[in-house]
C-alpha cells in the first residue's frame, strides 16, 4: 500500500495536478474570504472563519472529483490496472494507497488556510477574540467531508475508464450526499415525521454539527461509515474483473 501511496503523491506533484488543486482551492477560498465584498470577512465585522467553512465544501465538490477522476479510470484506460493487479498487492492495497494519497493532497491544500486563521486572530478585537472550538471542529469536519468526497470520487473512478464520466458521477455523488437530503427533507411527503431523519442522512447536517465545535460520536460514525461504504464499493467494482 505504501508503494502505491508514494507513487500517487509523487505523481500529483510531478505533474500539474497537485499544484493546480492547491492554487484553485486557495484562490477560491481567498477571493470569497477577503476580496468579494458580499462575502468578505472584512465587511462582516465579526472575527470568524465561517466563510471558509461554507465555501470549502462547495469547492471540494468539484475539486476532489477532479483529483480522483484519474486514479482508477486512468489505470483502466491505460490498462496499467493489469500491471498492478499482477504484482504482490491486494486490491485493498491499491484502493487504500490511492485513497490516502488523494486525502493527503486535500489535507495539504487545507494547511495554507491556517494563514487565514492567524490573520483573523490578529484582526479580532481584542486580538485573539475567536471561537477556537468552532474553528478546530470545522477543520475536523472539513477533513471528514473531504474523506467522504475522496471515497465517492475513487468509487466513481472505478466504474469507468472514461475520466470525464468519472468526474461527472463523482461531482453528482458529492452534491447528492451533501445537499440532496436537505432538499428532500423539505418535501411534503416527509414533512412532520421523517424530515429530521432524511436530513440526518446528508453530510451537511453532520458537518454543521461538528462545525459548531461539538464533536459527537454519532457524527464521526456517520462519516466513517460513508468512507467504509464507498471504499468497499470500490473494492467490489475492482473485483468485477474476476467475475
Amino acid at each position: 500500500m505504501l508503494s502505491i501511496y508514494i507513487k500517487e503523491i509523487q505523481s500529483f506533484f510531478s505533474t500539474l495536478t497537485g499544484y493546480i488543486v492547491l492554487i484553485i482551492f486557495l484562490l477560491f477560498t481567498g477571493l470569497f474570504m477577503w476580496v468579494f465584498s458580499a462575502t468578505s470577512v472584512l465587511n462582516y465585522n465579526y472575527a470568524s472563519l465561517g466563510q471558509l467553512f461554507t465555501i470549502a465544501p462547495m469547492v471540494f465538490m468539484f475539486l476532489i472529483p477532479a483529483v480522483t477522476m484519474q486514479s482508477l479510470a486512468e489505470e483502466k484506460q491505460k490498462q496499467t490496472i493489469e500491471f498492478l493487479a499482477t504484482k504482490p498487492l491486494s486490491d485493498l492495497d491499491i484502493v487504500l494507497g490511492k485513497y490516502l494519497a488523494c486525502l493527503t493532497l486535500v489535507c495539504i491544500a487545507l494547511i495554507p488556510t491556517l494563514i487565514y486563521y492567524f490573520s483573523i486572530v490578529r484582526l479580532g478585537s481584542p486580538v485573539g477574540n475567536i471561537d477556537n472550538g468552532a474553528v478546530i471542529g470545522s477543520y475536523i469536519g472539513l477533513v471528514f467531508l473531504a474523506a467522504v468526497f475522496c471515497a465517492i470520487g475513487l468509487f466513481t473512478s472505478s466504474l469507468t475508464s472514461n475520466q470525464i464520466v468519472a468526474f461527472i458521477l463523482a461531482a453528482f455523488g458529492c452534491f447528492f450526499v451533501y445537499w440532496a437530503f436537505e432538499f428532500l427533507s423539505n418535501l411534503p411527503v416527509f414533512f412532520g415525521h421523517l424530515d429530521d431523519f432524511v436530513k440526518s442522512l446528508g453530510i451537511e447536517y453532520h458537518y454543521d454539527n461538528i462545525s459548531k465545535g461539538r464533536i459527537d460520536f454519532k457524527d464521526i460514525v456517520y462519516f466513517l461509515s460513508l468512507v467504509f461504504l464507498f471504499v468497499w464499493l470500490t473494492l467490489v467494482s475492482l473485483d468485477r474483473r474476476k467475475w
Partner: protein
Amino acid sequence: MSLVVENITKYYGTQKAIDGVSFTAEPNSIIGLIGPNGAGKTTTMKILTCYMPSDEGRVNIHGLDIETDEQEIKRITGYLPEHNPLYGNMYVKEFLLFVSRIHRIPHPHQHISSIIEKVGLGIEQHKKISELSKGYKQRVGIAQAIIHDPKILILDEPISGLDPNQLVEIRNLIRELKEDKTIIFSSHILQEVESICDRVVILNKGRVITNESLLSLQEDEGEEFILNLKLTSPVDKTLLSDINGVSMVKQNDSTSYSIRCNKDEYTRELIFDTIVQSGSKIILMEFKQDSLESIFKSVTQSDS
C-alpha cells in the same frame, strides 16, 4: 515441475474462452504458447498471473496453489502483458524504483542499475517512459517483470512490433533469462517461437491441440518427409519415382532433386542404390523438416 496447469476453463459470460487447458513446464525451459487470435493464450496467461481466476481446474506453480497462495505466487512470477502497460509520465528509474518498492527489494538503487544494464536500457535510463521508442519500452516492460528475480516469467507477445535488431537483442535476453527461470512465451512470430522455445503448446478455440517438444512435433508431423539430394550427374527421374515408398520426385536443376518419401530407412537405402546403379554419386542428402509455421497451419486447420 515448475508449473502444472490442470484442466482450466474460463467463461466470458456464456462463451467458453478456454476449455480444459492442461500443460506442464519443467524448470529452466521456455514454453511457447501459440495459437490463432482468440485461441485463449492471453486468457491462460491472465489466469497464471492471478489477474483473474479460472472457473474450473487447478494451477500449481512451484508447489503453490493459485487459489490459496495468490500473493505468494505473484511474488515468484514476473509478467509482461501483451500491450506492455507502463506509466508514461514516470522516468525509467522512477518506475523501476516503484516496482522495487512493491517487491520490497533491499537496496533498490543498486539493483535497478544492474537490471538496467541487463536489459540494455543504459543510454535511455534518464528519459521519461513516454519518450522511449517501442523497443526500449519493451525493455522497460521486461525489466519490471524480472526485477524481483522471479522463478516463472510470463511474456505475452514480447517481440511484436520490434525491428530486426531489437528482435535479436530481446531474443538473446530471453535465452539468457532461461538459465534460472521457467519462461512461458507467446508470439505470433512463429520463427521466433521456433528459435527460442523448447516446447510448444498450440491452442485453438480455447483447447490445447498440441503440447510437445519442437523436435518431436517436427518428427511426428505426417508419415512422410522431403529429402533434398545433390548428385554428381543426372539420373532418370522415373527410376526414382518407381521406388517403393517414394510418392513424389521434383527435379530442381540438372543434378538436384527433392523427393517426398516415407520415413522408413529401407526406402532411403533403395534411393541410394538406384542412384549408384545409375552411375551417379550422392554428394548431399538432407531431409527437410516441416517448419513450425506449416505444423501450426496443419494442426489448427485440421482442428477447425
